[in-house]
């Protein structure tokens, strides 16, 4: 008790003493009627300390950049992966080599075979008129154009061809690309940039996929050819993005899907497009010269005027039996591409003889509407012939010139599926001289639709060709797939 009292006493007297000392210098100091106490000195002192500390640099571990020797060591230690992964057994398949033109009948290994591997829908390969226009063009212009379109690579036939395509389709203008594959992957990034929105079908081919990637836009996929899925996607996007009105919005579809043979329901798409105010980019590679009463493609098939669609592209390496591609639309859309589309600006132009071939091919198509009837009949005949085939379903649209046979029962892995399909294709070729091909996928391809056997029907096929093909496929399918099911 005594001890604590002493301590308390001592502390109290010490505090008093400190107070006295602190207050002493300013005991009588009054500023503006305000007493200045000793605590003010303490506070000012603290402020000074804080300011001093703030002015000091914070502690950083000393920087020690790598010395040259260390970098040398790192460089020595680094072992790169080989440029390509090691090749395995799967890569041994070699495609058959053709010994003549890839017409409806061609020669492989010295044997005449029926060709279902070329998208020669109108049977124009080997057409005398086409060859004549090509050879006169070759004599006049040489083979290559030796320059991009901007730098004297524009030859009058290019302009004629662009005008011819626009006239045929009833659009304002069109633009030629020198390769089918580059058409879409140049056209998409020209119109869609970072921040813009693209709604695309999940089954689009690689050229479009690459274009979507290069555009850096926000890409949303909808279920393959499923209009409910498209509607939901559009609805979601419209409600999700508040500033959607200021963004460019596109729907990207193929007219006839290369990966499935399905036909896009354009009437539905147009309704949805107009409701949600999206622009439509349509790839008509496999439908131009095929669908519609005069071969003008999907727009004619559905009776939609071509100017309802904003951008139409197509490869000319199918029905027109030449090479290259085109894009068609309003004058503004086309002019914009002439300076903004990288595959157009930075690439040599289409060899002039291929442009004359395209003009002639369109002429032939216009003069011979029976080619289209013939093609339609052939497609129907092949469908009839293939009905009841073992182990396969026909996945394509009955009007599509790509007849797509999908395995009824997948083995579970794409690799095994492909091996099975390839086995069938090989046997059909070897035993019955019918050349059919499987759909192959690059490792880069994001399309996940099931693989299958693709038959490209041509107006040049005769009824007996089609019968032979369906008989042969049925026979081999029953032998190979009979056990599976």
């Amino acid at each position, binding site marked *: 008790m005594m001890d604590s009292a002493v301590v308390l006493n001592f502390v109290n007297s010490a505090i008093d003493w400190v107070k006295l000392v602190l207050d002493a210098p300013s005991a009588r100091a009054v500023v503006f009627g305000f007493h200045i106490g000793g605590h003010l000195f303490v506070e000012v002192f603290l402020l000074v300390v804080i300011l001093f500390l703030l002015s000091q640099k914070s502690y950083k571990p000393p920087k020690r950049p790598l010395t040259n020797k260390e*970098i040398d060591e790192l*460089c020595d230690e*680094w072992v*790169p992966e080989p*440029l390509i992964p090691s*090749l395995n057994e799967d*890569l041994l398949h070699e*495609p*058959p*080599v053709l*010994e003549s*033109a*890839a017409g409806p009948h061609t020669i492989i290994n010295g044997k005449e075979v029926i060709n279902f*591997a*070329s998208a020669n829908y109108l049977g124009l*390969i*080997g057409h005398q008129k*086409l*060859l004549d226009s*090509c*050879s006169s063009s070759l004599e*006049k*212009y*040489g083979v*290559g154009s*030796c*320059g991009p379109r901007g*730098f*004297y690579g*524009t*030859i*009058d036939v*290019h*302009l004629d061809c662009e005008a011819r395509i626009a006239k045929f389709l009833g659009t304002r203008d069109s633009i030629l690309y020198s*390769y089918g*594959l*580059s058409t879409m992957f140049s056209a998409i990034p020209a119109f869609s940039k970072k921040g813009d929105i693209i709604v695309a079908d999940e089954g689009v081919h*690689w050229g479009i996929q*690459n274009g979507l990637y*290069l555009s850096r836009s926000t890409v949303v996929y909808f279920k393959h050819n499923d209009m409910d899925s498209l509607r939901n996607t559009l609805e979601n996007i419209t409600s999700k993005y508040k500033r959607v009105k200021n963004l*460019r919005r596109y729907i990207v579809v193929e007219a006839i899907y*290369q990966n499935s043979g399905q036909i896009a329901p354009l009437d539905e798409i147009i309704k949805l497009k107009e409701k949600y105010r999206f*622009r439509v980019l349509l790839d008509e590679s496999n439908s131009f010269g095929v669908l519609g009463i005069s071969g003008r493609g999907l727009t004619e098939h559905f009776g939609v005027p071509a100017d309802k669609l904003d951008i139409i592209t197509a490869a000319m390496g199918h029905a027109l*039996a030449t*090479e290259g591609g085109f894009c068609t639309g309003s004058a503004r*859309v086309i002019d*914009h591409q002439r*300076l*903004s589309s990288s*595959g157009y*600006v*930075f*690439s*040599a132009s289409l*060899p002039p003889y*291929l442009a004359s071939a395209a003009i002639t091919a369109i002429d032939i198509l216009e003069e011979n509407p029976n080619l289209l009837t013939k093609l339609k009949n052939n497609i129907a005949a092949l469908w009839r012939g293939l009905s009841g085939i073992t182990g396969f379903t026909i996945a394509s649209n009955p009007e599509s010139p790509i007849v797509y046979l999908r395995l009824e029962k997948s083995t579970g892995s794409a690799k095994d599926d492909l091996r099975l399909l390839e086995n069938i294709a090989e046997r059909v070729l070897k035993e019955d001289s019918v050349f059919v*091909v499987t759909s192959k996928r690059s490792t*880069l*391809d994001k399309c996940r639709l099931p693989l299958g056997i693709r038959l*490209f029907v041509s107006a040049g096929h005769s009824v007996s060709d089609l019968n032979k093909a369906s008989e042969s496929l049925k026979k081999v399918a029953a032998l190979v797939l009979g056990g599976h099911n």
Partner: protein
Amino acid sequence: MIAIPYLTALTTYFSYGLLFAFGQFRDFFRKLFDWFTSSNLHGYAPICLGLEDFYIRRLYLRIQDCFGRPICSAPDAWFDVVERYSNDNNKTLKRTTKISRCLNLGSYNYLGFAAADEYCTPRVVETLNKYSPSTCSSRVDGGTTLLHNELEECVANFVRKPAAIVFGMGYVTNSAILPVLMGKGSLIISDSLNHNSIVNGARGSGATIRVFQHNTPSHLEEVLREQIAEGQPRTHRPWKKIVVIVEGIYSMEGELCKLPEIVAICKQYKAYTYLDEAHSIGAVGKTGRGVCELLGVDTADVDIMMGTFTKSFGSCGGYIAGSKELIKYLKYTCPAHLYATSISPPAAQQIISSIKVILGEDGSNRGAQKLAQIRENSNFFRSELQKMGFEVIGDNDSPVMPIMLYNPAKIPAFSRECLKQNVAVVTVAFPATPLLLARARICISASHSREDLIKALQVISKVGDLVGIKYFPAEPQKQQQEGKAVKFD
């Protein structure tokens, strides 16, 4: 590296500033009028946006007639340029039936295979009749003919690599191959002036891209060391693989790649080399085998050799040459091989035949003559231009020689004045070059005769005086005022 004089830089900036100001001024009134006539967009965002569209409408369209001039003959040494006229201030151009015969200094017709050739053309027509213009099928389906295999062998043999794969378009060759080889976790080190197809291919691959200063091996080494030491961004994992991409001849600079140095550095740092010989294959080297032959680089040291057939061979398409395994792998995975229609058979035949001529396998020495001719022509033309005081960039032996113009007003002036005197030249501006570095580009061909070149030099000299692009004093003393120059990449 191009040195642009201060005064020129200033006037160039001023010109663009003026064009921009007037363009904006006109756009302002255009908007005002459009507002009255009500917009027809109906809830869509405008399809063409921003500065790019502004550039096209207000700058490019005004000088549109200097680009895309249609021709109506083969792009040989002399060709027929179709005259055009415009009724709406150059917004649209209409063709007339009038033509003018002009000397062609624009086409990439290095060896003169653009026009009909006594050896090639009959073979091409024969192939056309046999194989038709197209196979309508991809290479893995029904698009491989005997001719395609022959072409691949022929190309591999020509560029001295074990194997090759060909595509129907040069642009696609670059932009579809890079995504196959490179991917996430790999690094692409690209020359800063590489062609757009390489840029797009690199972007499409998803790999990290670093750029080194144009044709500067020391900077390449710096970038390589830094990147290998640091590894991938954020995770710092080591890079899976590194590829260095260079071009043989830079098409807008006319410069030869410093290949020996770059290959040595790549070897030291275990990076793969990718050489794009679009402009050099067939055009340079003793037997036309490109920069490797010219600069004495063993082709075994270049991992991936790419080139196009559009230029020296007068055809279309592109190739990749490399090891047997590489080509085999590409034939299995490359989308351009799997999905695109195969190269047109007549075009393939043109390549085979022209290579035969170059190598003298046609039984004549025309190929050797052509190669000697283009070298002589190029070096003569370049030295004469330099003597006149033009700012010509690029290296000797290269058939591409850009003449610097800089000011935007000089682009149409130079082009139109030359055309008036029947010399067709190419002028290049943004987006193919940086905005300030507009230039005219001369491409020399083996089919030009000495008289052609002398005529061209006379015209260019006269127009050069008129337009004021002789930035250096004429010979004998050529002084580069280095102190007074701003450096641009």
